[in-house]
């Protein structure tokens, strides 16, 4: 093991309309903040599937930050409320899985709040630094996961009354 100090890796999912614009504002205002945050732009915080958060941890993130518009300001009416609903259930589940609360964070940051991006990124970096690296133990998968798959394997569709009709819809 090398003696390099631990630098946390934080993946941030920022919504296009508010938080990402705020990060842009922080940039053009030349605000300095921790370089530990890697931003991924999504159209809406409501697009953040809990699988994204877990995949980030799986692939080496020590913390995950989600940024969306303030409640009432969502470009898509209430995508951010959906993000909040998932977050409030995801965080207790992650707690039970040994992932500390400080490693996942949801913040409402409007397009005008460049300074809030700076503050939140700095705060979270320091909190995660104090926690140390996330030590996942994941086995290698011997069987490669199939990348593509038919949406419906009709041979295996058990005779269920409405199935054919539904299967047809899926195929279209």
């Amino acid at each position: 093991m090398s003696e390099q100090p631990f630098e946390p890796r934080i993946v941030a999912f920022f919504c296009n309309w508010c938080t990402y614009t705020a990060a842009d504002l922080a940039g053009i205002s030349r605000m300095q903040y921790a370089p530990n945050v890697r931003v991924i732009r999504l159209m809406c915080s409501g697009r953040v599937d809990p699988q994204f958060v877990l995949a980030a941890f799986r692939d080496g993130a020590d913390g995950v930050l989600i940024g969306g518009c303030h409640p009432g300001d969502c470009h898509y009416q209430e995508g951010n409320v959906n993000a909040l609903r998932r977050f409030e259930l995801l965080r207790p589940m992650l707690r039970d899985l040994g992932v500390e609360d400080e490693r996942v964070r949801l913040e409402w940051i409007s397009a005008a709040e460049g300074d809030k991006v700076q503050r939140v990124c700095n705060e979270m970096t320091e909190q995660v630094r104090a926690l140390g690296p996330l030590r996942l133990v994941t086995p290698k998968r011997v069987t490669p996961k199939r990348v593509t798959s038919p949406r419906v394997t009709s041979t295996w569709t058990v005779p269920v009354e409405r199935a054919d009709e539904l299967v047809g819809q899926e195929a279209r």
Partner: protein
Amino acid sequence: MTKPKVAFYWCASCGGCEEAVVDLNEVVLDVVEAVDIVFWPVALDFKVSDVEALADGELAAAFINGAIRTSEQREVVELLRRKAGAVVAFGACAWLGGIPGLANLSSRESILEFVYQGSPSTQGGDGVRPQEETEVPEGRLRLPHFDETVRTLDQVIEVDYYLPGCPPPSNLIAQAVMALVEGRLPEKGSVLAPDVALCAECPRAETKPQDLTVERFHRPYEIVADPDTCLLAQGLVCLGPATRSGCGAVCIAANMPCTGCMGPTSRVIDHGAKALSAIASLMQAREQDEIAAIAGQIVDPVGTFYRYSLPASLLHRRVAANGARSAAGEPVGAASSGGDRS
């Protein structure tokens, strides 16, 4: 013409999958007519040496149920992999880890500590634990090694097909065996079940509201559920929207919500996360404290959403706390994971 040879084996499982084979009832006669069962420890008196005596690839298929936790299980499934043309992960445990996979919430050490020392029913023994090797006058006794973590079958050997369910429904088993005999199996890696969500075949689908929202979640014992109405609409955590169909909605027919044993559909990577996502979006509340309160009504989120799939999930197991932060020098998960969930 000689009949194709098949083998059945069980690993970390409850025996329910073997029961499911027996539950084929008279169809089992067609199965026995079509194939030769050469290894089935639960039901037939063949030994591992009989399997070793087979040529590589001589078995048409090996149906393996249960998750993998011990060295014995690893050895036998590796042997079966060599001998079998096709390996079928049979049931939720072999595919996703299943109920035994929830042991991944605890460390190996805390499990052994509880079972052999801490449990209220353990008396005496002076903390003696089973040893992998013991010398007795009659010779050396061996026990399998108990692994650090529960793994799915495809994390140990290459798997060709998956039969979902806890246990797999008998019509899917019969279809799989017959397809194997007739050589019309789908592409390797397929899950041998329909690839749509359970809601598609739910007899209560008609009563699922267009805009389904939940004011509060109930546990099944807290309410008397109406036997004809969508269980989600009644506030029960039913994983139907995020779980593969093919089971015939038998739990729903018994007025119990789906717990997700059929696993995810093919577009989902992490069943628990997707199920959580589906259920969370239904919460009616809009304010943070109200949402948190409703979310808190799901008392055991990991056990609810990852009931059958923790070892197959992206995180695989409970994360051990950082050594630097634990006073005892042992991963904190070892000491706390058993207790803090009660």
